[in-house]
């Protein structure tokens, strides 16, 4: 039993880390929007899919390499996220301070279904794959266990880490980033200091959905894409954001790692079909002991 555990553990942790780094991007996007706009924008599912398809169009139809395609996967959902918020969700949020966010959250669920079907209408239900070679995994002999790591996964994880680092740099060192953090921490105080909350809200939607789009494409690079790509990942993304602390960007990264590694390690004791439940058990456990999530809701 112990030998079996030692043999499997390194591989499961590596698999979990890779899953976690990819999940972190949409989780950050979701939580950043929550931090500034104070409502859960459930359109992340369709925007992740939109990112995957935008990247697909750039990569397969226009023959662009992966990195420029990722830029397209950022831009298209970012613009869509901004437009959706401006014309659909914002008017609903403003109807009432008490019920507005709830109305916007419910409208976001409807909107995500509508967007998913727009994608279905344009691209059809067929599976699509990026124009990328599939490489055999690298294998490492650890002495007590074999470890296999895929080049594509390493590349995806590296892209995700670079994007996260850029985001943290932006939030920490730029004037606009500091404005965003100020609004997230205390909108009233930020407004007294002359920060335009409207601009910051738009920026949050733009960057948040852009990150979700990049996450969607990274998911697609590793698998194939269809109109349900984002929807399949979204429950885990929510779980990651909530576990880390809804509204906390580092929390989203920690939450994604906890959920990613937790789901993989659960295979030691559970059947694979119960993996999705692990994210929700993690929510239950973390919120029981830390009702505001692992890192609380401080935005940064």
């Amino acid at each position, binding site marked *: 039993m112990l030998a079996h555990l030692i043999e*499997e553990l390194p*591989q*499961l942790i590596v*698999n979990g880390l*890779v*899953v976690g780094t990819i999940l972190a991007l949409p989780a950050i996007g979701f939580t950043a929007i929550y931090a500034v706009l104070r409502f859960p924008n459930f359109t992340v599912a369709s925007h992740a899919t939109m990112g995957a398809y935008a990247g697909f169009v750039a990569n397969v139809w226009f023959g662009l390499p992966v990195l420029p395609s990722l830029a397209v996967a950022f831009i298209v959902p970012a613009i869509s996220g901004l437009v959706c918020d401006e014309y659909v969700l914002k008017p609903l949020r403003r109807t009432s301070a008490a019920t507005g966010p709830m109305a916007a959250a419910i409208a976001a669920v409807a909107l995500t279904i509508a967007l998913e079907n727009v994608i279905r209408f344009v691209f059809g239900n*067929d*599976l*699509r*794959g990026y124009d990328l*070679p*599939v*490489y*055999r*995994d690298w*294998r490492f002999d650890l002495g007590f266990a074999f470890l*296999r790591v*895929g080049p*594509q996964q390493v590349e995806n994880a590296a892209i995700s880490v670079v994007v996260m680092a850029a985001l943290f740099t932006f939030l920490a060192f730029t004037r606009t980033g500091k404005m965003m953090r100020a609004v997230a921490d205390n909108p009233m105080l930020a407004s007294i200091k002359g920060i335009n909350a409207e601009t910051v809200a738009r920026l949050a939607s733009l960057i948040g959905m852009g990150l979700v789009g990049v996450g969607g494409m990274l*998911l697609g690079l*590793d*698998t*194939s894409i*269809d109109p*349900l*790509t984002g929807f*399949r*990942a979204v429950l885990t993304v929510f779980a990651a954001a909530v576990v880390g602390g809804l509204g906390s960007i580092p929390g989203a990264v920690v939450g994604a790692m906890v959920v990613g590694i937790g789901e*993989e390690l659960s*295979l030691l004791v559970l*059947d*694979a*079909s*119960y*993996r*999705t439940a692990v994210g929700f058990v993690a929510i239950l456990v973390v919120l029981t002991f830390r009702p505001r999530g692992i890192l609380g809701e401080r935005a940064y």
Partner: protein
Amino acid sequence: MPNRLTRRALAAGLALSPLLAPAVVRAQAEPIRLGTLTPLTGAGGPYGPAMRKALEGVVEAVNSAGGVAGRRIQLYGEDSQTNPDAAVRAARKLIDVDRVSAIMGTWASAVTTAVAPLCWESRTMLFTVSGADSITQLPHRGYIIRTQPNSTLQISKLAEFLGAQGAKRIFILAAQTPFALTNRQVLEREMPKYGGQLLDQVIYDKDKTVFRSEVDQALRARPDFIFLNGYTPDVTILLRELYRAGWTGGKVAPAYAINQRLLDSLPAEVTNGAFTWAPSPDLESPAFKRLQTLLGTQDPDPYSCQTNDHASLAALAIAKAGAWTGDAIRENVRKISQGDGERVTEVTEGLKLLAAGREINYAGASGACDFTDTGDILTCPFRYEQAEGAKLKTVRVS
């Protein structure tokens, strides 16, 4: 006393006159009513119209040859909408208003399951192309005949194929579906007959996006063949993972999972060598060739082949019985489809032989059409294909 034609005499005369009239005239009498409940819309929509046309072809042929039991067949068609609610309403209309003696061509298992009780309660025969094992396990008292192989037969055929490929150690990676457990049980039971064994099964959540650890679990068991019992999106990911993991052993999946869509979305080296299997029409049968002409296609789908047989079986059973009730069809359908009778593949040929008092054994476009007591087909041809260069090539049909 003058010879007066009383109303009673007139009525008696009219009642007897059809018996005295020649067959052609009698065919103008009250027609035999049969119903179709194919999916013209909904998920089955792509199949329904051809299924209906295949049924109509048989009815036209029978009517042109003078009908059955001296009567024409009148077909009443409804759309199941691939929706149990809509199908139940349509079936009620067919049974209560149109008074059909058989309903043919139900496609989705959920539709068939919903319509079946109406049929057996009203003694209406139900011919279906649905595959779920549970359908023929319903208490239908013989009123259901199914031309689609159930999943037990499909897995038994897979075991036979894997045995022929020399597979000894099989591992199943299965999506979480109602048939995953049954399939495993059947494969576990069947493999030893061909010198192989089922090592284990991992049931995965098909909505996940990464299956690396599931693939690792499969590979640790050291199989020589992996059965990917899922749907296209998850099987795509599994094939990619297997390739990355350096898997060079055999892989097999249902034809609805590894289809051209999947092959187009993955590099060929990932899918090369993967086997698929699926129930197949009897490609060599004259009935199949006639159906090709009727439908104007070289590749009629399996469901059209089956509904073509539904209409033929119903017409022949009615001819054998000399009666056109659901009970008559139920009692006689096996008498004309199996046994030692003369083999026929065409409905009018069968009608002639029956009229001459001969026994027949009908085999149609979908296969032998031999049924168990519970209404399942005993066997049917299967088509085995292998992916090579992003195309499927037929390995064998048997």
